[in-house]
């Protein structure tokens, strides 16, 4: 029987530590980092590392150092992704070490493209077993990823690639604002965030702001998905740093560069992890460590407000 809101009578608002403890178990299939380089729930990933999650499957298009960190910490058994690395710097050193030398552990990659990972999540959201596409025909990716099936279209016998549905156990989304029931507003690039929210069994929302129910209801077109799929709401301002949150703060490019430089060796990665993850209890301490001046330098200074919209009758 499906989960119901009544499991959440006690309320969905909780700390990051509670949300990860309750809704991300060892071995879980976790969709995270879904809006490409923006809105990446780095604070959630750091808490998974602090809680020493094991054997996770990570699902997402291009995870921009979040997957690399979890892989380096030994939390991950498998990735279902289009790209794993450091977007502005290049390779992900931890992903390389795990894939090439099984350090700190072996890793299975089920390779996708951005399109096929999106189609896989959309298929789950539609209750469809798979979606056929003409993309990746002639690519070796389907030969490396046995879940992708080359078939002929029953309509005209032409070649098609069948992309099977992927249903995450939990999708973790970073949003600009939501209420305590999990009604959220998400804007800017959305990548595959909505598809993942609709595909997942459980949803954890990490939010910059908690707002009144009425704020969300004033603009229902901005809502990524239904509140009743949301199990936990975590109020974590700055929780996406070093990724950008449209209208709140910009990407901290230097942080990605520093990570790239620091993690070239396993020892260097461990030092970085001790400093930025294991050595800080939570995101508040992380931001304090980052420093007020640096944090303020990332805040939005060029404000651009959306034109008025009337939902009246």
């Amino acid at each position: 029987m499906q989960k119901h809101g009544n499991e959440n009578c006690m309320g969905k608002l909780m700390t990051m530590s509670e949300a990860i403890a309750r809704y991300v178990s060892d071995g879980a299939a976790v969709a995270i980092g879904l809006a490409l380089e923006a809105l990446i729930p780095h604070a959630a990933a750091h808490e998974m590392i602090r809680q020493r999650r094991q054997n996770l499957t990570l699902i997402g298009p291009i995870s921009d150092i979040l997957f690399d960190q979890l892989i380096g910490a030994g939390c991950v058994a498998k990735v279902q992704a289009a790209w794993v690395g450091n977007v502005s710097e290049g390779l992900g050193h931890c992903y390389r070490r795990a894939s090439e030398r099984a350090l700190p552990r072996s890793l299975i990659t089920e390779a996708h493209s951005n399109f096929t990972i999106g189609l896989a999540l959309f298929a789950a959201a539609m209750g469809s077993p798979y979606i056929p596409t003409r993309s990746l025909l002639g690519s070796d990716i389907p030969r490396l990823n046995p879940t992708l099936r080359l078939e002929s279209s029953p309509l005209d016998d032409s070649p098609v690639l069948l992309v099977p549905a992927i249903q995450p156990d939990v999708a973790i989304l970073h949003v600009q604002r939501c209420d305590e029931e999990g009604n959220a507003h998400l804007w800017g690039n959305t990548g595959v965030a909505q598809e993942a929210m609709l595909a997942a069994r459980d949803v954890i929302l990490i939010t910059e702001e908690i707002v009144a129910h009425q704020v969300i209801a004033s603009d229902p077109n901005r809502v990524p998905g239904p509140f009743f799929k949301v199990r936990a709401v975590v109020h974590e301002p700055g929780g996406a740093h070093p990724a950008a949150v449209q209208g709140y703060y910009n990407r901290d490019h230097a942080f990605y560069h520093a990570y790239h430089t620091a993690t070239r060796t396993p020892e260097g990665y461990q030092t970085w992890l001790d400093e930025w993850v294991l050595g800080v209890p939570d995101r508040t301490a992380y931001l304090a460590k980052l420093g007020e001046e640096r944090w303020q330098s990332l805040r939005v200074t060029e404000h651009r407000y959306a034109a008025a919209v009337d939902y009246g009758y």
Partner: protein
Amino acid sequence: MEYTARELMVVCAARQIRDYERVFVGMRLPLLAFALARRAHAPHCAGLFESGTLRDAPSAELLYTMSDAPNITDSLWATSTLNVIGLMASGEIDLGFIGGAEIDHYGNLNTTLIGDWEHPTVRLPGSGGGADIASLARRLAIIMPHERHRLRERVDFVTSPGYGYPDAKGPAGSSWRARQGLPRGGPSALITTLAVFTFDPATGEALLQSYHPGSSIAEVQANTGWPLRLAPDCAATVPPTAAELDIIRASDPHGVWTR
């Protein structure tokens, strides 16, 4: 006039963009090429990003990633990754830019792994949207540093299909893509630090179209892992104009991507 190899590559990339075209823009050099084309010869071209964005003008600030906040501000469509790549799948996108770690004689690109599939010597980040762009765009332009170990007779892994390989059913080229079921497309240009290649769709082979000023056919051959075939009109690459360089330097004033 002084210019860097990357500045010349941006100019060569911009020349691939025709007015009114819809272009799947990557990061770094192609993004600068889009800015240059808009301000120079293609004022009506539109740029799309797989993060879910459509723009008719370059962003107000230099981008490190396509999801950077300035790239969404004042954009004309902020939507899902599926919707924008879907446009390409349905044939609406004229030109896509991608890069790669390795490319071969037939324009097949590798961004997945070097060496043995089971035990690679180097694990690369993967496709991202690259394999989709190579599969679905009407034309493909590839931008890479020109090194002999990157321009190979055959890549270890075909992440992004170019013109494939000759096989029992026929030659490489457009016919190979049709045999695979790809709906259209194929590489039209390979732009490197030393040269520009075009492709013969009938055979799928790369043709040396032009060598950059200061380089030569001999130097290109020395740095290319397959025996060069020259385009009939192979010549030196036309250098950037002062106006082109001014636009590039206005877009990347600190030379983040062009130095």
